[in-house]
């Protein structure tokens, strides 16, 4: 069979070499422009990278859908929470007046805020959907401080690329890039449907970012760390969930 001629082998080889170098160049460019997520390794890395890059290229500043008040779900569904322990109970019984939100890392003015401090920042509300990986979702009104405002208060440095946020729950932390950290709908939320944020929904302070799945909206936030690299955090994959195989970028 002369179907597989030398010429054909040669041109196929050329195409493959061209494709490979094109891919290599695309990878370098993607890294340069922050289109590669921290959990880009492994056999599922290409899929995660394509999703994250597509969202950052085409929907970086889009606003999550807001709903009319009539569509607020009643009651909102809380996921089951593990017991939080004696120390949390003490804080709750004290009305969370001793709760601290520490902000450190690449900031000009590291700070430690009380819940009252966070409430003194300009107050914003959104009626958005919280959507869980397991399939369920609900619409609620969230009240809180804009994440970007907190970054301004502490003076996040211009070379910052990510913000790591940690929970009161042990070994529970996650991170977002600056596109989400500076997004106007990314809140540190302290209110829900006109009331204090219930403990089962993450009170006193919960991360709220409506453009990503529920599991990025971590409850009981105690610390924000501004950084230019996620290498030093856990396994360097950007979140605990990524270490379990759940994508770091959960805007899907």
């Amino acid at each position, binding site marked *: 069979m002369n179907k597989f001629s030398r010429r054909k082998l040669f041109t196929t080889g050329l195409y493959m070499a061209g494709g490979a170098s094109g891919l290599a160049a695309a990878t370098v460019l993607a890294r340069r422009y922050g289109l590669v997520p921290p959990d880009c390794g492994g*056999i*599922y890395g*290409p*899929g*995660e990278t*394509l*999703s994250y890059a597509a*969202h950052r290229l*085409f*929907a970086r500043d*889009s*606003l*999550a*859908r807001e709903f009319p008040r009539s569509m607020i779900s009643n009651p909102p*569904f*809380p*996921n*089951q929470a*593990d017991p939080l322990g004696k120390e949390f109970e003490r804080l709750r019984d004290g009305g969370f007046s001793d709760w601290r939100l520490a902000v450190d890392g690449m900031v000009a003015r590291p700070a430690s805020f009380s819940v009252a401090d966070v409430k003194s920042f300009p107050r914003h509300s959104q009626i958005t*959907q919280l*959507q869980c*990986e*397991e*399939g369920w*979702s609900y619409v609620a009104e969230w009240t809180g401080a804009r994440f970007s405002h907190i970054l301004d208060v502490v003076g996040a440095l211009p070379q910052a690329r990510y913000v790591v946020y940690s929970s009161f729950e042990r070994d529970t932390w996650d991170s977002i890039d600056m596109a989400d950290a500076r997004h106007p709908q990314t809140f540190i939320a302290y209110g829900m449907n006109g009331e204090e944020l219930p403990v089962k929904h993450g009170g006193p302070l919960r991360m709220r970012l*409506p*453009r*990503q*799945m529920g599991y990025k909206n971590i409850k009981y936030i105690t610390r924000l760390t501004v950084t230019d690299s996620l290498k030093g955090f856990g396994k360097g994959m950007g979140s605990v*969930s990524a270490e*379990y*195989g*759940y*994508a770091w970028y959960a*805007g*899907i």
Partner: protein
Amino acid sequence: MPTGYKYVLPDQNGWSRALHFEAAWLAVLTGLLYVAWGLFRGHFRRNLVPASRDLSAASLWSVIAQHLRLLPAREDDGRSYNVLQRLTYLSVIFILFPLAIWTGLAMSPGIASAMPAAVSVLGGLQSARTIHFFVFILLVLFAAVHIAMVCIGGFGKRMRAMITSRAATGKEKNEQVLTT
């Protein structure tokens, strides 16, 4: 994994979702290539759009009846698709796959923020999920019937035809197949 509704998921299943989304990219990218190439080369027009005379009720019924009676395939069936195949393939390529991709994207909070109309037209996130599942069932049904028909039609013969794209066009080849 404990959940709030008295049901315990058997395992951390992050890998399955990662596989799903990577497979989705693969399906979208190869699908786009396939559709662009098919339009460019006239594959759909030539091989998949049924002739209008085949769409009459009588003609459609005769093909359906042939299948229902489990009659052996006609001799020219290996060379071109019958009207049922054409309609099924067109629905899979231009209705089911696009709908699967659309409803899948509509479940993404990021996409919903960029293209809210794509979600509200479907009736919201949870309606998109329901449609996504029904499309999935239809695609699995299609795949099952498709593979069953390939087996009934002669697995080796059909696979050879698919891979070499020869058996369907070469006349000697057809005769060869018939004599063996």
